[in-house]
Each structure stands twice: as C-alpha cells, then as structure tokens.
C-alpha cells in the first residue's frame, strides 16, 4: 500500500490574535517570522496514513507545496514516521488559486507515481476552502470520499468511516482513491520520537520547481487564478467578565445556572 499525504504549512493558529496581519494586496496572512506548523487536519491525515501502514504495510509519502521554509513541514512529517517526502517550491506557484494548487499537486503525484491512496486534510487551518481533496481527486481522476476519520482495508477494498452530522457512514471504495480527513479520537497525531527526528534530519528531500513538473503558466500561478479573495474582515471579539455573588456554593451554582440560561448557553 502506497499512501501520499498532502500537507500544508500554515502560520500556527495558536498565535495571539494581535499578531495576525494581512497583506492588503493578496489578502493573505503575512508570515513575518511567525511560527509555522502543519495544518491540523493534515496532521490527522498523516496519523491515518501511519496507522494504516502499521496494519497493512507499505509506504507513506508526504507532499507539500509551499515556500522553501515548508521543508520544515516535510521534516516534521518525516519525524512522525513517514517514509519519504517531496517539496514543490516555486514562488509563482504559490499564488495559484485552489484549482491551480490541485493541478500542481496532481502533477507532482503523477511524477511520484499515483498511489493507492491520496490523503488531504478536510479543510486547511488558514484559508479554509475545504476543496483540496475533491479538486485533487478530480485532477487525478480518482473517486473521492470526504470528511473521513479512519481508513481500513477489507478484501482489497477501502472501508472508510465518513463523519456526518450525528453519526457516521461506512463507505466501501476501490483503490486508488482520494480521501479528505477530519479529526476524531482515533487519529490524534502522534508525537515524533527523537530517534525518528534524528533520522528525518538526515533524509534528503527532493525539491521541485514548476519546470520539473512540466507546469504551464496557463494552468497555475496568479495569472491562471479564477478565484480571487476580494476582502477579508476580522471579527471583533469582546470578552467581559461577570462575578456572581452568593452566600453558599449552592446559591452561587444556582445563580450561575440561571445566568447561563438567560444567556441561552444552556
């Protein structure tokens, strides 16, 4: 079983909100030395892939389109235990719209060799488009199941758990297949082991540019973008603190319950 996991490097969503800055032209978040992480659901996707490899054997490959610093994301994935990684890094490609990004990733996947399973996160932690899995499946001509928490293999077919409101569906699909991953208790990303980190640091990771993938300007980059973000607004959040009085703990608890009901929290 060969699994390719597409991972995106984003600014750590845990940073304090006052450090969040937008580039007024591109309407993208400015990196400015902020700490970078693998987008959360992509980490769940890595975990799904590693668990599957532990069960059925095979190989897990991490693929990332990003700035040269995105090598850090590949190295993190290698530290978690994936077998190899590929980075596509070329400035013009980074300005592609999601359709263009899917095209780049599809080309890279074809160059690596279309695997049995392509995994993406179900939504990225920054732009949040929720489209990469399906677009990539389309570009590769693969069936696609979205919002999946677990993938198993039964009788040579994939049995995937698709999370829906208030429950799940079990979907059977033939390989090769593209799946977008959502988190649940079964795919909490593992910690890297120090030994794997040391090995990851030594591993060579090929870096490709547009020309290496035979990409043309008509399909990718800012010129080919058919979507453009026009405006972004940052919600103003206000927090306020109320202290409830009461003689006894029971009184205070009752006061709290009433207040929460008033606020329609409960």
């Amino acid at each position: 079983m060969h699994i390719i996991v597409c991972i995106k490097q984003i600014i750590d969503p845990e940073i304090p909100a006052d450090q969040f800055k937008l580039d007024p032209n591109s309407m993208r978040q400015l990196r400015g030395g902020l700490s970078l992480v693998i987008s959360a659901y992509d980490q769940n996707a890595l975990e799904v892939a590693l668990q599957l490899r532990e069960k059925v054997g095979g190989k897990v490959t991490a693929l990332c389109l990003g700035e040269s610093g995105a090598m850090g994301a590949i190295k993190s994935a290698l530290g978690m235990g994936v077998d190899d990684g590929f980075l596509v890094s070329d400035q013009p490609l980074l300005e592609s719209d999601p359709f263009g990004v899917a095209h780049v990733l599809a080309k890279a996947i074809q160059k690596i060799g279309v695997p049995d399973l392509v995994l993406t996160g179900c939504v990225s932690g920054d732009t949040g488009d929720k489209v990469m899995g399906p677009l990539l499946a389309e570009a590769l001509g693969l069936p696609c199941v979205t919002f999946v928490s677990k993938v198993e293999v039964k009788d040579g077919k994939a049995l995937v758990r698709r999370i829906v409101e208030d429950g799940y569906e079990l979907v059977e699909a033939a390989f090769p297949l593209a799946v977008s991953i959502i988190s649940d208790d079964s795919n909490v990303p593992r910690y890297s082991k120090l030994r794997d980190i040391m090995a990851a640091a030594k591993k060579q990771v090929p870096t490709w540019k547009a020309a290496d993938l035979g990409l043309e300007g008509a399909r990718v980059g800012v010129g080919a973008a058919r979507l453009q973000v026009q405006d972004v607004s940052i919600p103003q959040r206000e927090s306020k603190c109320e202290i409830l009085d009461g003689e006894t703990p029971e009184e205070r608890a009752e006061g709290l319950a009433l207040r929460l009901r008033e606020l329609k929290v409960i």
Partner: protein
Amino acid sequence: MNFELTDAQRLIRDTVREFADKELAPLAAELDRLKRYPEKPLQRLAELGVLGMTVPPEYGGAGADTVSSCLALMEISRACASTGVAVSLHNTLTCEIIYRHGTEAQRRRYLPALCRGQILGAFSLTEPTSGSDAASLRTTATRRGEQYLLNGTKLFVTNGSRAGVIILFASTDLSRGDKGITAFLVEPSVPGFRIGKREEKMGLRASDTAELVLEDCQVPVENRIGEEGEGFKVALSSLVTGRAGIAAQAVGIAQACLEASVRYARERRQFGQPIAEFQAIQWKLANMATEIEAARLLTLRAAAQKDRGLPCTMEASMAKLFASEAANRAAADAVQIHGGYGYLQDFPVERYMRDARVLTIYEGTSEIHRLIIARQLLSPSPPPSPHPWGEGKGEGPQGGPEEGMGAWCVRGGGEP
C-alpha cells in the same frame, strides 16, 4: 555567525514543548503539592526517546547532540522543574558518564535500560561533610577479592531512592585526596545498600532527593568505572553536560516566569488600566526577557561548543552561573508582578520561585562558579578567548579542571 537551530534541534524542541504543554504542565502544580515523583511523565519521556537522548542508537538512545539535550531540558523545566532535574541527572550525568567512561559490558548492561526508562539513573558525589569541596569526601571503598566494600553516607542524591543504578564516588585511598577517588556503578539491590532519609525541600518537591547509607555495601569489581583513582576525572568530565543541563533548567523556569507575568500583567487591572501599562511593570518584563535571552544564548553556546569538541569549561560555568541567577531574579520579579496573588499557591509563580532557589546551589554554587571563571582568567596560561569572534589568544590548552578545579567544586579552595 549563525544562530539557527538545525532541523533536528528544532523538531526535538517542538516535540518536547508540545508534550510538556499538553501532558506535563497540567500536572506540575499537583505533583508539587503532593510531593509526588513524576513517574508517569518520565515513562512518557522515555517513550518519546528523551531519556538517554544523547546516547548513540546502538545503545538505545537517539544520538542527539548537547544542544538538543539543553533544548529538551528547557521545555521540560518550563512545565515542571522537578521533572527537569530528574531528567537532567539521568541524561547529562548518569548516561553521559556510562557512555563516555563505561566498559562495553557496562554500556550494554545499563544504557538500553536507562534509555527505555526501565531504570533511572543517579549521580552521588555529595556527602554530609563534603559539598563544594567534593574532593574531601570520606566514603571509602575497600577491595575484598572480587568485591569492593563501600562504607559511608551520601547525601542529596537526586533520583536517589528511585534509581536502578547510581554513579557513586568513594575513596579507594583516603591518603591520596582527589587522586584516591573512584567511581562505581551501584545497584540498590546489593547487600549493604540502604536508602536513608528522603529530604523535605523548599522547592522541586516532586523530585526525589535521598540519603544513601552504605554499610559494607558490596559492589562487584566489574562495576568500577575506570581505574582506581580515576573517579574525580570521571566526575569532572561530566561538568559541561551537567552544568549546561542545569543552566537549561534555569532558562526553562525563567521562561515560565516571564510567560506567566506577561499574561497576568495584561489581565490584572489597577487604577483603571492593565498593570502592563505601568512602566514599572514594563521594565521588569523587559529586564526579564533580556536576561532570559542572554542565559539561553550562553547555555546553547556552551552546548554547541561541546558538540564541536571544543573546550568549554568556562562557558559552561558562565552559563550555569548566569542562568541560575537570572532565573532567581525572574522568579522574584514574577511574584512581585503578581502582587499578593504571587504569594499564593493558586498561581504557578509561587512554585517557580521555590523551584528556582536551588539553581544557584546545586551542580556548583554560584560562588564556586565565580571561582572557576576567575581562576581561568587569572591562570598563568589563560584559556583561549571564550569568544570565537574575539581576539584569539592562541590554541593553548584550556587551563582545564584537571589543573585544580573540582567537580562542582574547588580542590583545597575553601578549607585552610
């Protein structure tokens, strides 16, 4: 000059930080309050490969460098300084010494188990009458056939009552002073070994600090490290990693102080505004942050120097001295910024201040480190400039500890 971490160093730091934030920090106050040894966290750290992390893979370690080891200790101590000291003694003294000085058989017997966390390590030099002046230790080791009989009392042994192996220093010839000291690997199951008092401490209350009593304690000859009389050299060789480890612990505690203070200063309002808007508070925060950065750089540089095989006795002393004192200042200021709440156990800075206090005492008191640094400066053959970018003073050998500087300690430095 390049201050960038390598991929491996950064990933190790991030991994340990994530673990420390998620699994260690939430337990720290409770472990401290109950004086409960961090058994489970240590087990988890073993699973991640943090225990024995600098040991090469063929003996079960991760083969990480000293810089990574310091980064890990900073993150662990930022969450729980008690766990920090337990790991520091295990990694930077016990594992280091067994790997550097142990026979092949000793390495095979202990290192894999230490790396898996099956056993913990301890390092026992201090005695009731010998602290800074470690060379004056009185515990004796007398050879009887294929055994040594050890007699004496060891004090202040971190991990002492928990350890599966203790590197213990005793004299095989009292008349020869430091040249009579020999290092042994002592397993607590041997006859004549007894765990004495467990110390009640001001801080690091979740760590284990025990007295060890040796009454004709039988240690097989094959558990001697090196030759008779080489013990002091063995202790000295672990100076750099041990001190850098404690410096890293100090940086971690200080960082926790700063983070708690920034958070509190933003939230706490007096006189109609957050106290962070008072310049008196801002200056405290600025001083704290600056000293922490300086301490971090000194620590990582001593470690990097060690990783490059360069002499760094003085750098390690400077790092330990400065970081431990900076951590105490940071902790005192953190409590001050918290006002009356800083004095209560409800806020973590109360614990940070208690934990920080010992930093200027163990692994060489501040006084002893000033002495070591001054001796190097004043020695007839001064060490090469500590600044790689400074005036080169030649490649001469560093007036190293071998020439009169004791373990945490000065030989004959104090007593008349």
